[in-house]
């Protein structure tokens, strides 16, 4: 037997028809997640062909991108940003009902950001193929899934056939050795990986993350790492399941229960790259050298350790980015004043993320003039956080506590950063205007975002942590 990578094992198990010179592989999709923004035109296409969703039992929908995160008024009216946003939500409600697709809508106990609720409910399971009309679908790779974002045409293909026509990508293994320093998180690992690979260094590849640092990360941290694969151009990034994966999923609503779970777990634990598996590219990163990171430019690969300050531009693209950001090469990160802090999103809107932020916020207050917004990734996260009293810590610190949604990450629901304002955000993209026209975004971890809210400038969170000596 030829040694196989994790990716190859999962890929091979889902090939309905192998690829040839003139035809792509027909790849089976185990789980299709749907949200309101990239699905309406796909449902219209099915309707035009007189088709229904072929496997509603493998299709799950939620509302996250364009929904308000403010509470409804006394009459139950939700404060939609536009009538069109409301219409979009109603369109998904209608499409789901007409096709027998389970929608985690406003009345569901687990509505939330699509990449938060999939794993949370155990819809995401090791060895699955998972797709969604959203580029951060790579998140689910943390469970040993081949998970990738697709366009609306392909959403239609999956709704109609449960399959996609796909060419097999190349493979790349990123091994992160060593041990993370105290105060360094999955987000810092991800931003370091992207800075190492470059914005398009992963284009055409399926990534596998490996090494002691990845093993040591909790599942939330692994999800953050896989989530950001697309920011290096890779459609999917995956991590082999281990005992941590098995324990994290145990008892969740959609996973097998009882004895059947143990059987499934045994199969999951076999999902790993064989010794001697060959990758098209291999990269090694020293995890012990990773420090809390913050971006300084307008693409996610333009990041650097906070302690190193703002780098001096070495080319025109970097100059342009610094100019847009209003930052000066050589400055320390405490020079530029922060206006907004956003904690949430499919990248960092989970319990572990909110706990990390709360640890910094506890007993402190956001700096004068800073608007801080904390948005849980799902209803489950909201309820759990409120049980733990995290909401109180945030509001006592002067931050807003909202209902779950994508919110200020994509800024299409009315939550946005004003023109010219500088935001520190736990989200995934610092593109020009991503968080609102003219907005300027610094990407960082939840701890760094919270520390920056307190300090009023981009701040290394370790100064606010009671760190045990390593």
């Amino acid at each position, binding site marked *: 037997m030829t040694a196989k990578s994790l990716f190859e094992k999962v890929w091979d*198990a889902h090939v*309905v*028809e192998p690829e040839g010179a*003139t035809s792509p592989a*027909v790849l*089976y999709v185990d789980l299709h997640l749907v949200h309101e923004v*990239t699905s*309406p*035109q*796909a449902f*219209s*296409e099915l309707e035009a*062909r007189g088709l229904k969703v072929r496997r509603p*039992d493998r299709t799950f929908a939620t509302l996250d*991108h*364009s929904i308000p995160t403010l509470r409804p008024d006394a009459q139950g009216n939700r404060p939609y*940003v*536009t009538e*069109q*946003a409301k*219409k*979009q939500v109603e*369109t998904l409600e209608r499409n789901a009902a007409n096709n027998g697709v389970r929608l985690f809508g406003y009345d569901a106990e687990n509505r939330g950001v699509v990449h938060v609720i999939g794993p949370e409910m155990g819809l995401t399971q090791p060895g699955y193929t998972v797709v969604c*009309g*959203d*580029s951060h679908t790579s998140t689910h790779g943390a469970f040993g899934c081949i998970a990738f*974002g*697709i*366009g*609306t*045409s*392909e959403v*239609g*293909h999956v709704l*109609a*056939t*449960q*399959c996609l*026509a796909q*060419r097999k990508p190349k493979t790349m293994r990123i091994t992160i050795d060593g041990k993370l320093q105290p105060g360094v998180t999955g987000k810092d690992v991800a931003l370091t990986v992207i800075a190492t690979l470059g*914005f*398009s260094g992963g*284009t055409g590849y399926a990534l596998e993350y490996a090494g002691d640092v990845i093993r040591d990360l909790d599942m939330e941290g692994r999800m953050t790492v896989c989530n950001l694969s*697309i920011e290096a*151009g890779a*459609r999917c990034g995956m991590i082999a399941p281990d005992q941590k994966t098995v324990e994290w999923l145990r008892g969740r609503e959609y996973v097998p229960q009882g004895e059947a779970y143990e059987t499934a777990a045994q199969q999951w634990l076999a999902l790993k790259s064989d010794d001697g598996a060959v990758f098209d590219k291999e990269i090694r990163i020293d995890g012990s050298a990773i420090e809390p990171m913050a971006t300084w430019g307008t*693409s996610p690969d333009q990041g650097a350790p906070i302690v190193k300050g703002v780098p001096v531009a070495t080319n025109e*693209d970097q100059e*342009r980015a610094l100019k847009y950001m209003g930052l000066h090469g050589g400055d320390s990160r405490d020079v530029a004043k922060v206006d907004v802090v956003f904690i949430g999103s499919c990248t960092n809107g989970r319990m572990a993320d909110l706990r990390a932020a709360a640890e910094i916020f506890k007993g402190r207050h956001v700096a004068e003039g800073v608007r801080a917004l904390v948005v849980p990734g799902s209803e489950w996260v909201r309820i759990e956080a409120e049980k733990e009293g995290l909401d109180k810590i945030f509001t006592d610190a002067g931050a807003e506590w909202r209902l779950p949604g994508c919110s200020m990450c*994509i*800024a*299409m629901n009315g939550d946005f950063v004003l*023109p010219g304002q500088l935001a520190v955000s736990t989200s995934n*993209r610092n*593109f*020009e*205007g*991503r968080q609102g*026209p*003219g907005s300027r975004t610094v990407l960082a971890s939840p701890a760094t975002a919270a520390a920056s809210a307190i300090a009023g400038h981009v701040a290394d969170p370790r100064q606010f942590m009671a760190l045990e000596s390593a």
Partner: protein
Amino acid sequence: MSNQEPVNTFSSRIVVLPEANIDTDQIIPARFLTTTTKAGLGKVAFNDWRYNADGSDKDFILNQIDAQEHQVLVAGNNLGCGSSREHAPWALMDYGFKAVISTEIADIFKSNSLKNGLLPVVVDKATYDKLLANPQQRVTINLESCELSLEDGTVFHFQVEEFARQCLLEGVDAMGWLIKRLPQIEQYEQSNGKAA
């Protein structure tokens, strides 16, 4: 997304946006994604590069050209990175573009473009430089022979995934192609314990 008009050969003048990493948020900002159709997105293509906050025009090339005359967009490296929104090719096509050229084109944007008949052409640095050296030029793109011809006589042979190329040349409908395979899909589900 279905039954595309077959694409084969066409000639057009180019329009150049030399910035690298033009992401799909630039091509169409997220606040325009609440639409439930594909129609009419050309007017918000590159919205924040084209218009001031009050709606007036910025000094930007897409406000200065006749879209009918400029159907080929030449852009800096890593065009279409970021979000998977298919609204990006929809917006570019509704504006009037029929092809995009760059030294590197992001995966999902490339896949989305091909499904809509917007031809993504990846060129080498030398060809890219020649395009930039004469940003007013007319180019010819032949999908049958996979050739991009520049005004100076340069002919660049580009690559397009073969199935996507056949779909574009013959107007094959990719969803229909998958639907024809439903018997094999059902067989796969039965054999792998995945039947409903």
